[in-house]
């Protein structure tokens, strides 16, 4: 008996070759996030809320910059979404300034995505006409790719991180509208040339607005806050 078809005639069969059908999908790998970010952007625009997405390494000074920015711009009613893998430590620091804040913990996740912002925004309910600061998970790589519905991405880079970082992590510098160069009060103690940080960042993105600041001492904060207010409201 033939083992392939079970008939009584012994004979050979061509090996079975399933024919694959090609189906064109032609969609962006980021389509789902981009769609959601688009509806977030529309929702924020309707409520006249300007969102800024702060991206930088762990320890770059993102939270400290926010603490001092919130105090410097009391009438902007800044509210904050804090992204970290774990803990609500940053949310506690922001809450101590009196600002409204929601902490998002991503666990294993290395970046915030639009669905996380949509959920946090429901709880946070920022006032119409206010500024929303989103502090992304400390990471110079992954957050560059994910649109959160923000009006601008801002890179936060500390002077202690080294002048080669814009060249080594170009994507985020390309995606950003502004660079805040933090901890400038430490520059005299380091063997660095602050101008080279700016030169490298502008080589990646010639349109980048740059704000060197020492948040705790107040240096440069007026320019940064002016940009934030001017270009976001």
């Amino acid at each position, binding site marked *: 008996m033939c083992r392939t078809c079970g008939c009584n005639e012994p004979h050979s069969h061509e090996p079975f070759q*399933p024919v*694959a059908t090609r189906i064109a*999908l032609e969609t962006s790998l*980021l389509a789902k996030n981009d769609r959601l970010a688009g509806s977030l952007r529309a929702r924020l625009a309707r409520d006249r809320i300007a969102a800024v997405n702060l991206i930088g390494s762990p320890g770059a000074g993102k939270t400290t910059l926010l603490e001092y920015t919130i105090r410097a711009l009391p009438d902007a009613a800044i509210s904050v979404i804090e992204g970290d893998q774990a803990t609500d430590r940053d949310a506690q620091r922001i809450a101590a300034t009196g600002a409204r804040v929601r902490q998002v913990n991503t666990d294993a996740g290395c970046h915030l995505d639009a669905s996380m912002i949509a959920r946090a925004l429901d709880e946070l309910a920022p006032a119409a006409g206010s500024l929303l600061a989103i502090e992304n998970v400390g990471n110079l790589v992954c957050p560059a790719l994910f649109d959160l519905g923000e009006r601008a991405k801002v890179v936060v880079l500390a002077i202690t991180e080294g002048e080669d970082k814009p060249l080594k992590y170009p994507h985020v*510098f390309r995606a950003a509208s502004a660079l805040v160069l933090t901890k400038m009060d430490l520059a005299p103690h380091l063997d660095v040339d602050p101008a080279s940080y700016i030169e490298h960042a502008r*080589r990646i993105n010639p349109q980048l607005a740059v704000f060197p600041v020492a948040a705790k001492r107040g240096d440069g904060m007026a320019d940064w806050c002016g940009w934030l207010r001017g270009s976001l409201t």
Partner: protein
Amino acid sequence: MHELALMSGLVETVVEQIGDRRVAAVAVEIGELAGISVDALRFCFELCANETPLAQAALEIRSIAGAGRCNSCGIEAAMPSFCAPCACGSFDRAITRGTELRLAYVEVL
């Protein structure tokens, strides 16, 4: 590891579109300036495809070379990295190609 999020989204999208038909191949187009590690993408695809209709699928990756138009002299030319200057010396270039992150097609059985 944003590649993990991308591949998990890809598997989800494909299953949404074609249901539980077995997938033989998935083709994606990845620009040279898209900020994607192709090795990480392959690794994450295997993880995400496991126990789905894509489990046996081959991942075909077509790389798209970067190109940019110079805002100083107007010439469009190859741009293998964000800080690759134009032949005229300017770094001020608008990217015209190379940021693609596209799911092109699937082959189903």
